[in-house]
């Protein structure tokens, strides 16, 4: 019994220590970025690797999500004779919730896992150590551009997700189910507010960007440098990031609705 309590305590201390390490890592990444001239090309490379390469999955999934939303929404709304409200339904649910959340989760799966695996492997093959030995701080040279790349890429991907999803809904609602295009857009415009809906969605995705990339780089940087260690770090990266996104989404929504 006592030993179990001790085990629990040890686990707690260990978790606290990991959290502390992650916090220090974030602090060093945020406050000691590489200098502009050397860092900018690295940052662009990371935006390419994390943002541009995630574009395809974001485009395809958002198109389908928009189409499915329109199809489901249309049949439910039609029961109340309110199928003209399809535009607002899709636009609001995408801009407020689905866009930021689904993009962040897809991003965690596509880019976050790659980040963790890449950094973990660099650690396992002594690339990070040899960088340190060449007097180059791997936090600046490797981790920082990856963190900022993700932070910048995710909101951009969210914007693109939003537009494609709404376009998908337009295809199904207007082109297929025969809603009037003018009503579709004008109802959408009158009920979607730029500040309250779209900007809040973007703010969410910035927060998600920090959370997902922070978790990904931390898991990679502190991964056990073996193949099993990297595998479990990658899994943890995706799982933790997805959970963090969903949890943060609730908190942020509560804050935004409560007008904090």
């Amino acid at each position: 019994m006592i030993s179990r309590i001790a085990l629990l305590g040890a686990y707690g201390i260990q978790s606290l220590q990991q959290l502390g390490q992650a916090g220090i890592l974030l602090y060093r990444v945020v406050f000691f970025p590489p200098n502009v001239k050397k860092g900018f090309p690295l940052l662009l490379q990371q935006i390419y690797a994390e943002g541009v390469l995630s574009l395809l999955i974001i485009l395809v999934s958002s198109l389908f999500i928009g189409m499915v939303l329109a199809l489901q929404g249309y049949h439910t709304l039609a029961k109340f004779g309110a199928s003209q409200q399809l535009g607002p339904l899709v636009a609001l649910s995408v801009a407020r919730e689905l866009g930021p959340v689904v993009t962040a989760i897809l991003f965690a799966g596509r880019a976050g896992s790659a980040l963790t695996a890449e950094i973990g492997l660099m650690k396992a093959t002594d690339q990070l150590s040899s960088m340190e030995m060449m007097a180059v701080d791997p936090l600046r040279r490797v981790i920082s551009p990856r963190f900022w790349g993700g932070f910048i890429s995710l909101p951009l991907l969210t914007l693109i997700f939003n537009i494609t999803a709404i376009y998908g809904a337009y295809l199904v609602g207007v082109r297929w189910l025969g809603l009037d295009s003018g009503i579709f857009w004008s109802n959408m415009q009158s009920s979607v507010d730029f500040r309250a809906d779209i900007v809040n969605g973007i703010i969410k995705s910035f927060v998600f960007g920090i959370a997902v990339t922070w978790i990904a780089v931390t898991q990679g940087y502190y991964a056990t440098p073996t193949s099993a260690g990297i595998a479990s770090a990658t899994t943890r990266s995706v799982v933790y990031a997805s959970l963090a996104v969903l949890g943060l989404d609730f908190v942020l929504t509560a804050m935004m609705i409560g007008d904090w």
Partner: protein
Amino acid sequence: MQDNIVEISQMSFSYGNGRAVFQDVNLMIPRGKITAIMGPSGTGKTTLLRLICGQLLCTKGSIGVDQQEISTLSHRKLYALRKRMGMLFQTSGLFTHLNVFENVAFPLREHTPLSPSMIHTLVLMKLQMVGLRGAIHLMPHELSGGMARRVALARAIALDPALIMYDEPFTGQDPISMGVLVKLIRTLNDALQLTSIIVSHDVTEALSIADYVYVIAGKSIIGEGTPDAILHHSSPQLQQFIQGLPDGPVPFHHTAKSIAQDFLEGTIE
């Protein structure tokens, strides 16, 4: 008085989980010589290198490199010191996303304001020394293990360090590349007036090029001297290591209960 680039005195080190690795170790690395540090696997030879280069900090005692105490250096001074150290890792640690040329150019680009053409010349010179000038466009995964180690060596000497550390340079090499590496280490040391530290458990190779040898086992140094002196040392522990005997002061069996007791107790719980 001999000039030492690394001076370790009364140094103890243990990991965060309490496992002690070193106990009161005294060690001097003379400047301009090749010093071999030998010992069985798992005695913390690599840990010793990490202590010297400041990636780990000792728990007691002092480690001085170039008259500077490693544990008290600021982040910036430590990095300045590391520019004058090179290290060759067991896994060579080449950057997998850069080709051979870029790998060797990496420290130059990071630390010097040299023009691209200067960097090109320097990189070619370094690669010429290790005999791989023809391989500049290859990616690390296209290199054999021995070639990768030579590229890593070229990268380690790119900034013309004063001290270079080799972590198990001979493990997993075929006889030819082993011979190449032995020759390279010797010629580089003499041509560039380096100080070399070789960590190894390959007795013959290490003894063949070292000027001075330390043997570590069980948290402390069990023998030191010139290769000749080591070969004829009377300590049984040392002789077991050098001759590769399976049983001796370092037991063949891992520490365990008596065999009868183990069998009687039945299944492992």
